[in-house]
């Protein structure tokens, strides 16, 4: 039995650890880490900047003046503009084409007087938003003319702000207790100011901290997560009622463009002590700092009814993260970032967190639930194929109700895993054909159920699946059942299928009729109908059919007459 379902990438990105000469900045939006090395001594304040990307972009190195003053540094998403925050009043921009920095710097000070810039974020390749303690300022940067233009300014008291790059959404906390949140969405120079709303209070403190709020996208929907932990000490009076469970919960708010945010779900954490979250492949991971275990949540199947706020429980029992050398969360210098990043600045490592899908199979006994989870994962295909294989293996305790093949397509609308019929055929189904132990009737039932789920999604049944089903039925000698299936046209008409059915005529004479019916339904198979009839010496019928489809003129009289003559039936010859 596996004892971990989470693991960190085995090859972390390494950077120079933080020390008195080295500062490290991490840009969450682009997944880039900047190390600034000042080795020049007192006179030389220039720094060697090394940029490493989590997303496989090239490593970049360059020198920058006034290195010690830098408070924040990041690239525009296409890396054409480097932006640096040196003072709390202004952001400096440097154009960069093919990693050659231009000499000219241009700057933009914040508009609000006496305000201080706390952070800034790129919302597109040419648009940037400044967050000051008094305002949110939206600018357009023109690198060709080295000009920055103000697009929009909102005066607002800012406690803290969180930026979500995928939806270019900024969430600003503005009231005294920080629980009043104002979201903004930036798009093509326009700002959509969403309705502000009050979120649940923290369970222990009066003020909502920035680190207890996560803005994230799960299954394409924007959420604000409010993490509400409970201290480990026993005697704590909670300042707000816990919703999910006694010892900690996460309140999820769904954000909408045109309607107010609302509580979508409550995740029950229920372990005292503070925690952090990651989002991996739309699964919510909750890392418990003290207990050194993690929890796994999937909201997909719980959020259906907008009228109800579900309390969602973890999929699995809490387990620690599998680590290679260092125990995660042991080192105090570890910091987590969204969506799945762990940084140890003292060690100089960036890891990414992943979920081990292949161990879930041993941990989740309900195969339908397991399938539900796997179908929604990016890399769910392989475990699903394994699951299907196992479910058909004779000797395993397999029931028809629990068979994963049944439901693969039923929940198709949002599924992320696409398993092609031919893939399922070659990777799963064929291996059971040679296995004489495999119960044929069971396999037939499973296949028919699979076809049902295909049909439910209006997918036509591929020939390989039809062929397999027919072979199984023939092996089982259930010809009449095959007849009924074809009669109700469960299998998608095709020329190869018609030929296969035709080949069964010897064992089951009605197959001829079934095959002819099918050929007739396929518009391109007129010729085949005629040829089949001729091969059966139904010469008159072939002629009649040719005439009925309007091809009577193109008939080769000689061919028919010869055939009629060879048939030895004089009457037929002259009728023709």
């Amino acid at each position, binding site marked *: 039995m596996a004892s971990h379902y989470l693991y960190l990438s085995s090859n972390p990105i390494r950077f120079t650890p933080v020390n008195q000469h080295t500062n490290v900045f991490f840009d969450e939006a682009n997944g880039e880490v900047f190390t600034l090395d000042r080795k020049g001594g007192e006179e030389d304040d220039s720094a060697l900047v090394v940029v490493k990307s989590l997303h496989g972009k090239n490593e970049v190195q360059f020198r920058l003046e006034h290195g010690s003053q830098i408070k924040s540094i990041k690239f525009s998403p296409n890396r054409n503009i480097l932006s640096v925050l040196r003072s709390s009043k202004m952001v400096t921009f440097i154009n960069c084409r093919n990693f050659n920095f231009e000499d000219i710097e241009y700057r933009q000070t914040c508009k609000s007087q006496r305000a201080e810039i706390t952070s800034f974020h790129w919302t597109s390749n040419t648009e940037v938003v400044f967050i000051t303690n008094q305002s949110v300022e939206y600018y357009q940067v023109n690198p060709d003319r080295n000009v920055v233009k103000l697009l929009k300014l909102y005066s607002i008291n800012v406690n803290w702000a969180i930026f979500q790059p995928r939806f270019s959404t900024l969430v600003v906390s503005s009231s005294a207790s920080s629980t009043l949140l104002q979201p903004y969405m930036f798009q093509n120079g326009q700002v959509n100011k969403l309705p502000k709303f009050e979120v649940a209070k923290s369970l222990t403190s009066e003020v909502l901290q920035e680190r207890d709020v996560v803005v994230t996208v799960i299954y394409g929907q924007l959420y604000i997560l409010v993490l509400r932990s409970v201290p480990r000490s026993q005697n704590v009076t909670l300042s707000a009622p816990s919703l999910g469970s006694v010892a900690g919960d996460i309140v999820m708010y769904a954000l909408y463009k045109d309607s107010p945010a609302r509580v979508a779900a409550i995740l029950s954490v229920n372990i005292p002590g503070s925690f952090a979250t990651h989002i991996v492949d739309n699964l919510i991971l909750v890392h418990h700092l003290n207990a050194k275990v993690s929890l796994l949540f999937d909201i997909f199947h719980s959020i259906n009814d907008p009228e109800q706020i579900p309390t969602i429980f973890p999929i699995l029992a809490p387990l620690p993260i599998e680590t290679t050398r260092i125990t995660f969360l042991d080192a105090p210098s570890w910091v987590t970032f969204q969506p799945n990043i762990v940084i140890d600045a003292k060690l100089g490592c960036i890891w990414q967190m992943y979920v081990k899908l292949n161990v879930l199979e041993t941990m989740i006994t309900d195969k339908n639930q397991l399938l539900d989870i796997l179908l929604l994962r990016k890399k769910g295909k392989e475990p699903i194929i394994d699951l299907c294989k196992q479910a058909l293996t004779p000797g395993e305790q397999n029931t*028809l109700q629990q068979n994963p093949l049944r439901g693969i397509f039923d929940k198709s609308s949002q599924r992320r895993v696409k398993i092609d019929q031919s893939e399922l055929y070659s990777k799963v189904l064929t291996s059971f054909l040679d296995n004489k132990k495999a119960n044929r009737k069971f396999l037939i039932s499973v296949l028919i159920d699979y076809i049902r789920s295909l049909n439910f999604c209006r997918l036509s049944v591929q020939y390989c699946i039809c062929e397999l089903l027919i072979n199984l039925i023939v092996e089982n000698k259930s010809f009449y059942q095959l007849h009924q299936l074809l009669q*109700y046209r469960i299998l998608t008409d095709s020329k190869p299928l018609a030929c296969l059915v035709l080949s069964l005529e010897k064992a089951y004479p*009605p197959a001829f009729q*079934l095959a002819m019916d099918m050929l007739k339904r396929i518009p391109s198979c007129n010729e085949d109908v005629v040829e089949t009839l001729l091969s059966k010496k139904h010469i008159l019928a072939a002629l009649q059919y040719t005439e009925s489809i309007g091809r009577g003129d193109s008939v080769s009289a000689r061919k028919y007459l010869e055939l009629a003559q060879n048939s030895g039936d004089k009457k037929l010859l002259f009728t023709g």
Partner: protein
Amino acid sequence: MTEKSPSTLINFFIFNTTLGQEEGTEHEKILFYYPDADNIDKQSRSVGLSEAIVHFCGTFAPDRPCEVVQTLKSRQVFYQPEENFWMIMALTNKDGNNIVYHQDEVQDQALQSILMLSYKIFRLFNGPFSMTFNESVDSCRELLKHFFTRFIKSIKLAQQDLQDVLQGIRFLPLGKQQFLKVQQFINLIEANFSNITYAQLLFDDQLIWSSLDLDHTQILYGYLTTNLLPNHQEAEVASSLDPNMNRYCLFEPLCTVTNYLFITGPTELGHAASIGKIPRIFINKNGKWEIFAVIVYKVLVDVYIDYYYYNLTSTIDFFRKLDKFIGPQIKQLTFDIAEQNIINRRLSLTEMQYRFIYFNHMNCAFKSSIYPKINQPAIIGPDLMRLFCDIHAEFDKSKSNEEFLAKTATDCWVVGKIADQRELFVAQNLKNGSLLDINDEMKKLVGSLFGNIFYFNS
């Protein structure tokens, strides 16, 4: 031709040629003889004559045994169901006390189908003749007497029509998705109850699915729709206060429906004693005759599921489990099917424009607009029906693709067509219509009703 008193049965007997080989012991051949008022001499003579005819014909056509012997006053029909066994039925052609003989009033075919059907029903409930015969000839005689005495009483010579001759199966037209759901449901039952070997699903006397082979399906379908279910319905109507209430439920959302019940099996799930007598049938499974019990479970007025299962000593627990398993699942399924059925009824209005009978020999599919319901008499006159039957008999002899066109004295066109094992009979009133007109009408009908199947157009 006006209605007249029907031909009457002269005799009906079954004999085995291996018995009574010695002279003077001919009567031993007889396994069953009706009427038993005939003395043993007469019985022996009848059997002897029949056997002689069989032998005589055999020398001319060894592959095709003797079928009918027609004389001025009587007709004799032969059927050899198993090797060495012969079933013979003789009728008089005499019309009451008049000395007028109607030789063509009842078709040979219809008579033969009576013999064949009687044998198949016997085999369904008792197994083949040879099975009991090989055990004990006396008990075989007992069994035949018990079965055929009752059967002969139920023969209605006058009412024979094409429906009886064909013994077709009415299939419920159903969408793919609904059909696959039915499949899923049946497969689940068969997988969950290991002693249930076969299942059939009927809706409104129409077959949706059968896991038996065609032969057994056909005969069981006939037994259920013409015997077991109508009898049950009569009993129910007699006992229930307002039978229309139930029927109405079918078209309502199924929230109030709780009336599932076992037609064979326990009448009350609480009482083990109410299981009662469960019919047993013989099914040929891979060449071996095996005994199965038939459980019929009724969901609504018109939905029946039948299960054929092994275990003959079933307990009330089994029925409870089965009820618990099926009950919740069948609810939605029934609703889906009923919904589609309403749509089908609307569609079938086009079918109602024509008076036709369609039959496919390959799957025994039967479709017709001239029978309001199964078991009910046709809405066309007996002369038209007789014409249908005659054409069908003609098709049966020639076995090739043919077409018949006939016009009756009442300006009605009758068309019979056989192509690729499918028969179609149409009656159409076409005043002053020519042969071309009726041909066009036929094309229209075939196009609208049978466009999806391969049917020789001409």
